[in-house]
């Protein structure tokens, strides 16, 4: 990329940290700050790679004691079975407590209405806020990263939400040094993003280094898919394919895991972590650009959803 004219960074000191070590130390610091300052924290756990890395960091942060947080999954009902199986196995393995908020319950009793396009990602906000309120969670860990999307690039590590769960970019507190201000009024809560400074590549490199198991759908496999909005979607009961859409069996993998109706697969033969890292390093698309229909809606789609209280 560039030609070296200067000497490499001084490595005389034995006290160096790799970028993964530095990111890990920062994330662990954030988990411990929350444990020290909040009454009822919860980790949003979807079974996606970012939430899996969060849980892994939390397990390390409090070793040999158990993680002092419960988990919350907002279940759209359009889940990949492999992910639910992984979720339940992980919860049992670490003796954790999992709350599940079902979008379906809210549709059944009329608090939410199914969208014409069948996607349920935007519907998660109401059950999420309901769970936060009913369980009185005061700190909610999310796996959001600032590299994902430009509205997230200005997100704080500790992000204050009002009593409606809403995010007001103008009310966000300046964050200096490693001093996080978690003060909040009754009814307000703080979203906490321990992976703020990680990139997709960092997450995968860390998964490789730590030998973290992921749901199989992150690796290449054959699957019946059909094309919609330029993405490969999995055929299923949620409403695809339409008559005009043709199902094909392709070798694909998922770069992100979300609602089946709007999470696209990518053509890939990356069967191992090393393959995936090679693929991401060479990719010319961001993870959300490649796989998320909901972010393609408008220039400010994420900003608008965040304001309403989305992850």
């Amino acid at each position, binding site marked *: 990329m560039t030609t070296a004219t200067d000497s490499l960074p001084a490595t005389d000191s034995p006290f160096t940290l790799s970028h993964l070590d530095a990111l890990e130390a920062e994330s662990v610091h954030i988990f411990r700050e929350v444990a020290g300052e909040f009454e009822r924290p919860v980790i949003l756990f979807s079974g996606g790679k970012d939430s899996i890395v969060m849980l892994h960091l939390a397990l390390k*942060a409090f070793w040999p004691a158990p993680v002092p947080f419960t988990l919350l999954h907002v279940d759209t009902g359009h889940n990949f079975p492999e992910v639910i199986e992984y979720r339940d196995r992980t919860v049992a393995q670490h003796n954790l407590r999992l709350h599940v908020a079902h979008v379906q319950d809210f549709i059944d009793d009329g608090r939410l209405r199914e969208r014409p396009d069948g996607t349920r990602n935007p519907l998660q906000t109401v059950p999420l806020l309901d769970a936060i309120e009913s369980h009185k969670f005061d700190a909610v860990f999310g796996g959001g990263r600032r590299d994902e999307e430009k509205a*997230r690039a200005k997100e704080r590590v500790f992000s204050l939400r009002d009593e409606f769960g809403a995010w007001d970019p103008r009310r966000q507190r*300046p964050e200096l040094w490693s001093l996080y201000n978690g003060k909040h009024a009754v009814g307000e809560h703080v979203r906490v993003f321990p992976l703020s400074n990680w990139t997709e590549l960092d997450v995968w490199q860390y998964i490789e280094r730590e030998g973290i198991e992921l749901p199989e759908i992150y690796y290449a496999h054959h699957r019946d898919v059909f094309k919609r909005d330029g993405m490969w979607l999995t055929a299923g009961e949620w409403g695809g394919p339409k008559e005009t859409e043709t199902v094909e069996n392709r070798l694909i993998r998922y770069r992100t895991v979300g609602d089946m109706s709007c999470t696209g697969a990518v053509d890939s033969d990356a069967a191992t972590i090393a393959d995936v890292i090679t693929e991401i390093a060479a990719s010319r698309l961001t993870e959300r650009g490649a796989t998320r229909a909901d972010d393609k809606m408008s220039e400010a789609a994420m900003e608008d959803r965040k304001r309403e209280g989305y992850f």
Partner: protein
Amino acid sequence: MSTTIETSATSLLRFATAGSVDDGKSTLVGRLLHDSKSVLTDQLEAVEHASRKRGQETPDLALLTDGLRAEREQGITIDVAYRYFATARRRFILADTPGHVQYTRNMVTGASTAELAVVLVDARNGVVEQTRRHAAVAALLRVPHVVLAVNKMDLVEYAEPVFAAIAKEFTAYAASLGVTDVVAVPISALAGDNVVEPSAHMDWYGGPTLLEHLETVSVTTDPSEQPARFPVQYVIRPQSGEHRDYRGYAGQLASGVLRVGDPVTVLPSGHTTTVAGIDALGVETDIAWAPQSVTVRLAEDIDISRGDLIAAGATPVPTKDVEATVCHLSDRPLHVGAKVLLKHTTRTVRALVKEISYRIDIDTLEQRSGAEGLAVNEIGHVVLRTAEPLALDSYSDNRRTGSFLLIDPADGTTLTAGMVGEAFDTVRTDADGEDWV
């Protein structure tokens, strides 16, 4: 670009850029991201689409960094934006901050975690008031390395004397603020000269390109040169199973090196003991250094809780009287007599603003006494009295244990950023020559 190179990036550099659109800052940031291949196709397409909607023919790279709707609509940057990119050698976290005076708080925020600051000047204008302000903020926040990027060299015929004069003036000014590590690079962000690729127009310049310097600058001071500081975040006590009797203090080393067997002092109590064991996130180890997050076990059973400091070497004397340089961050002014919360490392205590000794004009560095309050973006020197003693280091010695926040106890608003001690290594007085120091 081979994968082995991509994944072997080891160190992390946090740096900040300060400047305005007029200096070409957005173009520079866009150029760094674009030429280091960190802007991906869909991001570029989004920018092109948005630029066309605004009637612009060429993609406006500023749209890559202006994330919020209000910013795009008003064509301004209102907040610190964090950018991420990597080269074969290093991972970078860029705090991109707007440069106008009303955004001093954003520059202060971005500089607080930066190990390097890039100050941008327009080669046609040279060192102007804004340049001095950016240098002052970097000096105030004790950013260890400063880069002067003399931009728009293409508009001054790539003339060496223009660059040399600006570099000389800036370096002298920075030195007067106590900033000794200044590297000046002549660039054209628009044309790409010396940003990522060496310039074909400036043979007279033999130094590194901006990116080469960012890749190779030595990022951290040797932790063994500083005394160990370990603020306790959380006490780990499983109280059951095989680790029934385990008691460890979880924290992140703010500075220094800790070894098993080291004598340590617990502050503010003053109890002394030795390090019995160190667990590095589940793996027992003999040694840990800043900024690692670890769990420390001590030889004696002392009453320690969140907010205590485990320290080695020369330890600070806990005090309730705090003198500090502050930058006020909130739209609500800070007044003498205000009762606030002070958050220092992992300890939050009540505090009273006893005195605002003087305000510092960040453009001229003049100290103006008689300030009744500090408004947003203002910098001053204050005297505080806390309800409980704090183990403070001077900010010039330790950016982590010498910094604090003031918080409004009523609604939790972050009011003020504080740095223990004097602002700069050199003291200036205003023209009136008033009798305070």
